[in-house]
């Protein structure tokens, strides 16, 4: 039936030592010998082992055999196909064999690296190769699909990483759509006052880039908007973007700001001012906002809520206010997508013993950023919640919500430097006594440690230990009216109680609260802690498992501004590289319906999330649109008539591989008398 009894294929088997990576645990010579003898009847004409199959010499070995022995199939037993499948396919191609007639089976990641028993690992390797051989018999020559790349790129998120990526691409002369959820781009960086370690003014270095992004002829800036739907595949994504109504006609508005002055409704700004300051119901988050047009926040606008007011409308010199605006859905085609949606701050209320939300003078790092910011609610004055008192002592708690198995295991990587920056600013501006409570100091990047030394010299106290609790329960007169930080000083091995006026919680970075939806929307996967997974942690940090979708900045994991900028630029470079190629080649893994066999039962019709399956009512048969098919094979597995077949992963391929994998122990079974 499905088993080719006497395969007339000529198969070459190549077993890689990978130095000692494989040969250390697997007896590769024995495996090759076994394959040559035991799999001869399945068509194996040559089986070799070699130190590094992926080396040019190793590849030449294969090419030579293809040419001289006329191999029709090739099985390479080495590392994971995710690493070198392409390498060996190319080798076959060079030797004139269709690249898809080559099968790479993994005896490294799936065998030598995870097993210790040499015999077992060797036996397993044989089984894996037998599986590969049985499978490769059924491989078919395929030609990769080529699809043109749409030159436009979508960048999601207008923080520093997104801005950087957008500018790089735009400067190279290609169109970019930069989508931002908030009224203005700028992201978290716009909220900061100073940036470590150089202490240069955040706004001063960010705003020029923002303006550039806002005015660049190749950048279409879409703020106050969210991506709601993504269709298609690399080179040809169809994106739907929800443009929330601004209630301000951007054609007419010149950003004079009168509406904001006249608006009678004050609202606490939880986003940009981190809840410390106010804005109006019609507002731009901050003076240098890009775009400069304000938005009306419907929930808080008196007119929308009570039907009267319209002050903004009355005073607007250009009649730009338009209460009739409706939400719009924008459709656009893009070739590639860069995700730079950033992070959310860890909510310290989750650590009740730190008292945030209960104790007035416990602040989050972001709140303190706003306190120090000249454009912030206090005009840069560092004061307690009462708005006037200047703290005499300040405690800065590191690793709040980071490196803590109760919350997040990972290190948020920016907190040490940020806390040092806070220490410096607090000391400089208030002359306060500053205490840093840290677990470990981590200052690895360029001129970071120098900054640490500097802060040390400024006389900041460093206490090594995780803070146990922060409370206002005084034990002695000295503690009266203070916040007492209870901590074990692990360097002197003593419990200490440090009374301070102000506590700053250096809260960690967390994935956006809606990271799961984002991942689903773009078909990506998150790691356990919620950061998007890169294609390779070391060698491919900006690509994702999904062709054509890249990631930059904190969406991939906590990182500081320099690192975010680097990733933004790197992602842009990737995008440009693809655009230059004009077209992408895609794995020819597709499903096809045998029109004669299909009875139009329509079982498969609602199984495809890419809507690749269409039903011809007239002929009562279903058909797969190869352009939309992503090759998952779900419909192939579902067809009750066996009328749908999938290239690359056909039933025969898998069933034969199963037979191959079981060949060995079936032998053993027979050996053992029943």
């Amino acid at each position: 039936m499905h088993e080719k009894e006497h395969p007339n294929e000529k198969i070459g088997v190549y077993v890689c030592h990978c130095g000692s990576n494989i040969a250390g645990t697997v007896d590769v010579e024995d495996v090759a010998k076994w394959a040559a003898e035991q799999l001869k009847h399945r068509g194996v004409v040559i089986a070799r082992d070699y130190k590094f199959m992926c080396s040019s010499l190793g590849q030449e070995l294969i090419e030579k055999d293809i040419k001289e022995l006329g191999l029709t199939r090739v099985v390479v037993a080495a590392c994971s196909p995710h690493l070198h499948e392409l390498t060996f396919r190319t080798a076959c191609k060079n030797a004139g064999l269709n690249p898809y007639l080559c099968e790479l089976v993994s005896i490294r990641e799936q065998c030598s690296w995870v097993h210790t028993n040499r015999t077992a690992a060797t036996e397993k390797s044989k089984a894996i190769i037998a599986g590969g051989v049985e499978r490769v018999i059924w491989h078919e020559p395929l030609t990769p699909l080529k699809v043109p790349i749409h030159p436009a790129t979508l960048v999601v998120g207008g923080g520093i990483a997104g801005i950087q990526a957008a500018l790089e691409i735009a400067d190279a002369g290609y169109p970019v759509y930069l989508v931002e959820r908030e009224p203005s781009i700028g992201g978290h960086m716009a909220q900061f006052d100073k940036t470590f370690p150089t202490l240069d003014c955040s706004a001063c270095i960010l705003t020029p880039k923002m303006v550039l992004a806002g005015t660049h002829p190749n950048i279409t800036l879409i703020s106050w908007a969210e991506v709601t739907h993504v269709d298609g595949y690399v080179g040809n994504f169809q994106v739907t973007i929800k443009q929330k109504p601004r209630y301000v006609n951007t054609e007419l508005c010149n950003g004079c700001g009168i509406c904001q002055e006249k608006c009678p409704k004050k609202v606490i700004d939880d986003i940009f001012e981190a809840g410390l300051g106010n804005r109006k119901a019609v507002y731009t988050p901050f003076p240098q906002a890009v775009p400069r047009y304000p938005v009306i926040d419907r929930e808080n606008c008196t007119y929308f809520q009570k039907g009267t007011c319209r002050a903004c409308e009355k005073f607007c010199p250009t009649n730009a206010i338009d209460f009739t605006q409706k939400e719009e859905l924008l459709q656009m085609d893009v070739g590639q997508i860069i995700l730079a949606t950033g992070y959310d701050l860890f909510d310290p209320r989750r650590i009740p013993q730190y008292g945030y939300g209960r104790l007035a003078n416990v602040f989050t790092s972001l709140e303190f950023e706003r306190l120090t910011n000249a454009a912030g609610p206090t005009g840069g004055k560092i004061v307690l919640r009462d708005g006037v008192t200047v703290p005499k002592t300040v405690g800065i708690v590191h690793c709040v919500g980071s490196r803590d198995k109760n919350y997040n295991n990972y290190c948020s990587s920016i907190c040490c430097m940020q806390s040092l920056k806070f220490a410096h600013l607090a000391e400089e501006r208030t002359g306060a006594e500053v205490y840093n409570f840290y677990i470990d100091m981590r200052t690895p990047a360029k001129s970071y440690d120098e900054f640490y030394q500097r802060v040390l010299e400024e006389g900041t106290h460093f206490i090594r230990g995780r803070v146990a609790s922060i409370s206002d329960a005084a034990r002695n007169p000295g503690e009266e009216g203070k916040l007492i930080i209870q901590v074990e000083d692990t360097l002197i091995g003593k419990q200490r109680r440090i009374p301070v006026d102000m506590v700053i919680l250096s809260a960690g970075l967390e994935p956006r609260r809606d990271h799961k939806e984002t991942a689903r929307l773009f078909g990506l996967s998150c790691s356990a802690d919620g950061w998007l997974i890169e294609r390779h942690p070391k060698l491919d940090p900006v690509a994702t498992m999904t062709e054509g979708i890249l990631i930059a900045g904190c969406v991939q994991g906590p990182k500081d501004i320099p690192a975010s900028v680097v990733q933004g630029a790197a992602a842009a470079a990737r995008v440009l590289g693809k655009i230059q190629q004009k077209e992408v080649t895609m794995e020819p893994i597709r499903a096809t319906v045998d029109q004669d066999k299909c009875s139009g039962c329509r079982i498969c019709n609602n199984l495809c999330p890419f809507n690749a399956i269409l039903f011809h009512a007239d002929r009562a048969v279903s058909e797969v649109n190869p352009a939309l098919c992503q090759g998952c094979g779900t419909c192939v597995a579902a067809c009750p008539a066996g009328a749908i077949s999938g290239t690359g992963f056909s039933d025969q391929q898998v069933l034969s591989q199963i037979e191959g994998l079981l060949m060995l122990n079936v032998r053993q079974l027979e050996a053992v008398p029943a």
Partner: protein
Amino acid sequence: MTDTQNFEPVIIGFTCNWCSYRAADMAGTARIKYEPNVRLIRLMCSGRLDPTFVLKAFSGGADGVLVSGCHPGDCHYVEQNYKALRRFHLLRRVLVQMGIEPGRIKLLWASAAEGAILADEINKFVEQVRALGPLNWKPAQSIIEAQASVSFQEVPA
């Protein structure tokens, strides 16, 4: 019968190209050790898993079958792992009715980042199947030969 004392089960594991196979890769890269009894097959998606494959594995001599894919909601193909989930539940009922212990088949969600979890689950599963002993599902022919005739209990006189 293979003696159950030092019985080493053979398990066929189906993985999806995007999550569980990469989890296996990660386990490898991190040198996390696990039992050598599982032999993996890479599919593009757990949704590709045709129950025929599982039946083939059992009838072909496997003692257990592991089906793994991306976590619900994290499927690279949006929602195909849910199809795998539905089929799995139905298939398991069939297998049980055919006398195959439910402990011989396992559905496991593992993200590309969960190499350690995958390794751990594989170990548990291997242990579980080892405890169940060999299945060695025999081709009908060999049974017929093994017991050419069935002796019925004697008639009381």
